[in-house]
């Protein structure tokens, strides 16, 4: 039982799988000698060799494309895209092939790959280094999308993603890579890939969020608890497919729903959650479904990035409005 950060937990999970399954390999830009620009793969090449932890040339479409080729031929590639702002060249391969190989061949072939990518803002990074575009991948049939928000979930969900027989886009909230430590047992135990997590139980309002925003959301819940507001906080964790039973049960209990995400609002994943509840849970709702999200603008350069993002204040104010319905 070691106390580890979220990023340490990811390294542990990759090491475990490299150790226990010879089909697993890591590839990406700077993942080898350098151990990744965020150090997620630090030490892995030294330990497992340059064949199994490979530095690739600089081409994301290539990384996705060869990962598909390898996965179809029996390997379990875990590819890293350095930042979500550079994931777009992979979109064609992911939607046109990764998500289709199994269906296209009626199960003759499959594509068990993982595309890892740090995402989100708030680290004072340069342009294109703060994107949150999980909605693109959530809209792709055949692709699973997973986002951990704690060291333990990072470990268990990444193991599950690597072992899953289908392609998984695994997005890592880099703002909380090293935010805090949690004791995680390195026991190779995976977590399920289609359940969300109730981080805090409550009865007045349901707050659905994921990734780094779980922290703003929990803080908002803490603040409001002082004034007697009981919030239920749900970490979506598996963005696609969505476990909406848990969300619907919670809304049935609370009657109020606020969705918080960092991505731009329009056609974000928050809209899907709202749509599901507006269909299946509408009679449980006491008032409007509200979203606290990034705005429909380009993520500003860092002097203004925090003004773009949902903040504790924005969240608490929105919850208060909801309570007045």
């Amino acid at each position, binding site marked *: 039982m070691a106390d580890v950060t979220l990023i340490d937990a990811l390294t542990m999970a990759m090491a475990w799988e490299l150790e226990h399954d010879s089909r697993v390999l890591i590839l990406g830009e700077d993942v080898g000698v350098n151990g990744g620009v965020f150090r997620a793969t630090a030490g892995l090449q030294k330990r497992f060799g340059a064949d199994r932890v490979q530095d690739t040339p600089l081409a994301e479409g290539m990384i996705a*494309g060869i990962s598909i*080729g390898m996965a179809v*031929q029996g390997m379990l590639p875990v590819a890293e895209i350095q930042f979500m702002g550079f994931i777009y060249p992979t979109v064609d391969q992911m939607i046109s092939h990764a998500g289709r190989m199994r*269906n296209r061949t*009626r199960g003759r*072939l*499959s594509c068990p790959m993982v595309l890892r990518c740090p995402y989100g803002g708030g680290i004072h990074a340069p342009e294109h280094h703060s994107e949150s575009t999980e909605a693109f991948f959530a809209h792709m049939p055949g692709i699973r999308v997973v986002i951990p928000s704690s060291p333990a979930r990072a470990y268990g969900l990444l193991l599950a993603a690597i072992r899953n027989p289908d392609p998984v886009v695994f997005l890592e909230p880099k703002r909380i890579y090293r935010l805090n430590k949690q004791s995680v047992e390195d026991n190779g135990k995976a977590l399920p890939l289609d359940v969300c997590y109730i981080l805090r139980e409550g009865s007045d309002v349901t707050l659905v969020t994921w990734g780094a925003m779980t922290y703003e959301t929990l803080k908002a819940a803490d603040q409001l608890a002082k004034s007697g507001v009981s919030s239920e906080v749900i970490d979506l964790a598996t963005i696609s497919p969505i476990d909406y039973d848990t969300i619907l049960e919670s809304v049935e209990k609370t009657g109020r729903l606020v969705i918080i995400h960092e991505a731009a609002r329009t056609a974000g994943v928050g809209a899907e959650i709202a749509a599901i509840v507006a269909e299946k849970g509408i009679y449980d709702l006491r008032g409007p479904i509200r979203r606290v999200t990034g705005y429909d603008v380009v993520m500003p350069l860092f002097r203004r990035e925090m003004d773009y993002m949902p903040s504790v204040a924005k969240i608490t104010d929105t919850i208060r409005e909801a309570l007045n319905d």
Partner: protein
Amino acid sequence: METIADFEIQYSQFLDPDGNASPDIPELARNTDALVDMYRQMTETRVFDTKAVNLQRTGKLGTYASCLGHEATHVGLAAAMNKDDVLAPSYREYGAMFCRGVTMSEVLLYWGGDERGSDFEGPRTDFPFCVPIATQCLHAAGAAMAFQLRGEARCAVSVNGDGGTSEGAFYEAMNIAGARKLPVVFIVVNNKWAISVPIELQTASKTLAQKAVAAGIPGIQVDGNDVIAVRHWVERALARARKGDGATLIEAVTYRLSDHTTADDASRYRKKEEVEAARKLEPLIRLRKYLTDLGLWDDDREKALLEQAAEKVDQAVQRYLNTPKAPVESMFDYMYAELPDSLEEQREHAMQYGDADGSHHG
């Protein structure tokens, strides 16, 4: 100024359009069984192709991409491969796919709008048809990387067209293959046209083989209508790859004698004369002449082969036409190894409506 690197691009043809063999014709030209077998494959492919076009014309098949004129390139490249190598085709390499063991009815099912056409009975690990141009080059590179990592003596072969050489994916695949000495052969079928775009508008590069220079791998141009040249150079490239010496780019120069697909009308953008001139160079004539000169072929054998091919094709067509639609729910049942709960409801909804209710247009 000093010269720090130089490159030469070679062209190879062993059988000229009249079936005359060049003095340096390789060993395999003496393997008469192999020659006859390739001729049979090429002929069967052509008979199939003609039939498929007719099926489309009579409403029994969807849009279909003819391979007329490409038979030598397609059969030659597949004949050079080992059974356990993998092919990453685009969408018109039937000659190659048949050699690999894909059945004619599978190809018809694919163009007939049925996914089961890609569930190849024969080559279980070959990649399926690939429509997004040049994306398969990366799959071949990835497959080669898998073989290399596992220490298998297998190779991957990808096939794309002249138009495909304009897509970034094509260069990215060659570059990683070069950097890692991957056991892969990239075959560019230069049939002079990308739908209506002639090769001159596609690139200023004088040959497509020279695009290999960008990746630091060897490139060669061969007469794609000469099955001996295609097979010989692909065999050489595969042997080299298997030895661990890395990737090769082979440009096979041929001509698309048909419309791009049955949805296309090439008369809009190219001259009859050009097509007629190209027809004289087509691959079956020269091989038949060569076989005839060697006393390996005659009209009776030709007649017998055509009948046999027609019968084989008819059987495939029957199998295709007699294949009932897959059940509605099949669109859900292969999306994931395990269907997520969230899709159950949609699956039931689809089943409830069964077949299309015909409310659509066009």
